[in-house]
């Protein structure tokens, strides 16, 4: 169970950080290289850099966790989907069912929010950045809820 809690907590934290990085870029540093027939630019913000740093830290912590657990899981396999035996496979299928329902409900709710905003003209006067933030917020919210639904269902089934 610890492997699922570990992976889902890390995923949840990464989703929130990713959402914060894209929703609130704060101060953006741009680096651009332009040559004849070629242009390349990179935009980074402190939040985005923090997100990238946490991705790297997470990869290292995950590697150490897998080594310590001595699980049969490979480094490239999702820990939350890896099953040690048939019962864990069964639990994963049930948790995936909950996650699927959460995804469908979440996406439908997001579409409902966006449709309502369009119908009532809530975003008509809003700047593009607000619409962008709403869209990113919807994606992050759905990812977080789906992840939480999977984790909770997995743990509840495991303890039975």
């Amino acid at each position, binding site marked *: 169970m610890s492997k699922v809690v570990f992976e889902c907590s890390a995923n949840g934290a990464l989703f929130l950080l990713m959402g914060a990085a894209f929703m609130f870029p704060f101060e953006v540093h741009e680096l651009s290289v332009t040559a004849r027939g070629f242009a390349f630019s990179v935009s980074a913000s402190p939040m985005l850099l923090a997100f990238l740093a946490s991705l790297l830290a997470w990869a290292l912590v995950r590697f150490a966790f897998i080594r310590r657990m001595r699980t049969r899981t490979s480094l490239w396999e999702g820990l939350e989907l890896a099953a040690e*035996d*048939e*019962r864990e496979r*069964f639990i994963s299928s049930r948790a995936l069912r909950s996650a699927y329902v959460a995804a469908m409900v979440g996406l439908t709710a997001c579409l409902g929010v966006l449709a309502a905003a369009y119908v009532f003209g809530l975003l008509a006067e809003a700047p593009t950045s607000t619409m962008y933030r709403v869209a990113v917020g919807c994606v992050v919210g759905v990812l977080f809820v789906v992840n939480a639904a999977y984790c909770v269902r997995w743990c509840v089934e*495991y303890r*039975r």
Partner: protein
Amino acid sequence: MATIANRVRELREARGLSQGALAEAVGVTRQTIISLEKGGYVPSLLLAMSIAERFGMAVEDVFSKEEDAR
């Protein structure tokens, strides 16, 4: 609804086997044996046969179909 009852705990204890040892012998986790003994998990046919084989008994002597009273 029908369910599967089992005598895994009784047979395991009679043979002086720990849950971990039985789990290792049949290739599952200890948690699966715990859940099986509590009646919370219905094993696959393959696992049921492996457990029965470990006890040197027929599957139907270890597992039996039980009608739910509700």
